[in-house]
């Protein structure tokens, strides 16, 4: 059907408006990028908007030779890779049995999971628990608490439930065991869901800083996001200590650190994004 003249005009302006709206969301990001590449003089006199002025790469050189940054990067990569793998494994092992209606006590177990999804013991008990397990100031204190996300577990469980029972029955007639069914039948079909949940976990682990703030006091165990958070917070605080004032980092350097620590996860996104929507819908909508 043809659009009327009025509609055409409406669409024209609508698209322009939406495009502008899209561009505005990019602005802050471009601004930080430009600042990271500009000279400090240009940055403090407020001349930098979306393109660099007084182009320099010294800030990036500094960031990538800074021991603290590299150390934190290592910690973050370790947590993200190991954490995601462990979390995926545990989540699948939890979700699979719970997707079977004949499992005894299934409802009770599920209720317990949902209960902890809504209510939490609070920070102090968590801290004491970590302490009693001797996990404080270890890298595992950053991995273990986030290992099973109930939400993610439910998505995978729903997916398993949506797989026709006959598929599994066929496999069992051929003599496949429980593990066999899981690893050879279900998981290959579940790839989109696993990719999505894996990305969820990866993003959670990559962005986590609160656990580190509470459970870790060793500077060499700080993940990247905490390093970044503290770097920025420190410079925004009113200056009380003269010696702190003497060591303030420049804004270009902060911006370079922000870019350098956002880039890795940004690179992973596009490759997994296509699974995103598909993965969630496949899991939740049942035909």
């Amino acid at each position: 059907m043809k659009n009327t003249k009025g509609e055409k005009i409406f669409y024209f302006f609508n698209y322009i408006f939406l495009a502008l709206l899209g561009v505005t969301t990019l602005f802050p990001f471009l601004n930080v990028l430009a600042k990271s590449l500009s000279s400090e003089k240009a940055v403090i006199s407020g001349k930098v908007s979306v393109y660099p002025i007084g182009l320099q790469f010294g800030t990036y050189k500094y960031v990538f030779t800074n021991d603290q940054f590299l150390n934190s990067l290592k910690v973050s990569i370790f947590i993200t890779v190991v954490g995601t793998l462990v979390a995926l494994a545990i989540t699948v092992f939890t979700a699979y049995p719970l997707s079977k209606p004949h499992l005894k006590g299934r409802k009770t177990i599920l209720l317990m999971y949902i209960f902890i999804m809504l209510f939490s013991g609070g920070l102090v008990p968590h801290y004491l628990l970590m302490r009693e397990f001797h996990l404080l100031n270890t890298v595992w204190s950053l991995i273990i608490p986030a290992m099973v996300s109930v939400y993610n577990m439910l998505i995978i469980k729903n997916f398993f439930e949506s797989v026709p029972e006959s598929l599994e029955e066929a496999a069992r007639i051929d003599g496949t065991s429980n593990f066999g069914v899981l690893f050879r039948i279900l998981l290959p079909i579940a790839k989109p869901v696993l990719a999505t949940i894996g990305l969820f976990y990866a993003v959670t682990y990559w962005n986590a800083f609160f656990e580190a703030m509470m459970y870790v006091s060793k500077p060499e165990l700080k993940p990247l996001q905490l390093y970044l958070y503290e770097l920025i917070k420190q410079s925004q605080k009113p200056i009380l200590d003269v010696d702190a004032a003497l060591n303030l980092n420049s804004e270009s350097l902060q911006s370079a650190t922000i870019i350098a620590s956002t880039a890795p996860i940004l690179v992973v996104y596009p490759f997994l994004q296509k699974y995103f929507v598909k993965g969630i819908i496949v899991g939740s909508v049942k035909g």
Partner: protein
Amino acid sequence: MKFKKSMKRMVSMLAVLSLSATMFVGCGSDTKGNDDNSKTENNETKKEEKVTLKHLGAFSEFDPNTDPVAEALKEKTGYDVEYFMLPAENAIEKLSLEISGGTSYDSIKMNSPEYNLLTAQGALMPLDDLIDQYGPNIKKAIGEDSWNAAKVDGKIYGIPEKNSADNINLSIGVREDVLAELGLEVPKTIDEFYNALKTIKEETDMIPLALSSDYIFIPTIQSAFGIETNWKEIDGNLVSKVEQPGFKDYVDFMVKLYEEGLIDPDMPVNNKGNSMEKFTNGTAAMKVMAWWDAPKAIPALEENVPGAKVAYIQPLIGKDGQQGIMKDRGISWYTAIPKTAKNAEEAIKWIDAKFAEDTFKYFTIGEEGVHHTVQDGKYFPVLPTFFDERNRSSWYLSGIDETNYPIYWAARVRKDENMSNAYDEFMKAQSVASFEPLGFAPALEDLAKYEKSLATLVNDSVLNFIAGEGNTEGFDEFVQKWNTSGGQASTQAANGWYNTSK
């Protein structure tokens, strides 16, 4: 065929199982490994009578375990120390958590609010006997005033660390070239100051004074109204700034400046960065500055406005000749030992070793000729060695050698010409500068309780007079509110201490 298949299945299952098993074993054994290590370390060190001390410090952006200063300290004191840090945010909450969980730190460096909290909780060890026994150097280095500030009910729970030097930190930077063009001199009195702002407003299109909402109490201007410090002795009693006679006049003056457009109209929404932008790109003629702003601000300004020259205004002289400014002195840190510490004695010995004269000098400013040079009794840094190897010394302090450290410390300011110039200019006001009377007060519960909320109340109300109401008609009401929201209690607490300390 079938056998083969099941073999394959077995193999893959085993592979998966062993994989997941190693994951668990991995994390299990790792933590165990750590424990074992620390145990054997303890055993070994016991034989040698040296332990690895655990020290918790405030947040800073470096790793104290790998810094050259840590090495220097280890070399001189012989102690192995593992350093930990509080987070930049929620530090006090984290510290409470650690303490209530029964920490094993041997020493903790904390700020006053943290010290107040932990002494109130009874979490710290009294140190009097330990210092008497093992701390001759500590006793020698720290003065009586500082010790008094650390006392709670007559006992010392932390080693007080005085500010590095008696600095004057704030002034107003002014474009001397702009003033010269208008035939004006750098203002000395409050009238000259007002006149300068007025002339800039009338003759140029510059913003006379760039200001942000968190800097509305400007020491340089307060000087002319007789307000130097937050508390001041009047007729034998300490009176808060809010109730000092000149305070209303100061607020009136600021209201007038804002009403007449002599202060940046964007002041209420400006932050530090905005007002710095306006000053450095040449749109504003004056700005409240700290001397450590100079190394960034001056080069930026010179690039944007060739020929620009900055002078710093001395504390302005009032109508009746009043002049004064606050010296930054007081206790900024305490190093304490928690009751749960395992090696309290060793910790005190370690701290004492840091105060030994050559050790203290070595880890704070290094060796002469390598890290610093001395000219006419003044210390100058050797660049870049000084800042590569001694930049973070202050983090490792557990108190300062109160006679020598201010002299050593000044080397830090001399790393940059602009900073050094600004610092020297600011310090010219020494003759009219005075100390904050409460800078050496011990932990006063009522003061600590209301400090933050009162500061917010004062800042918000005065900001509202200046930028909102445009007059000070509600001033008496504000003082009343200040009194009922904890001001009165604070005044009583302050005087309670002041009268006994005299």
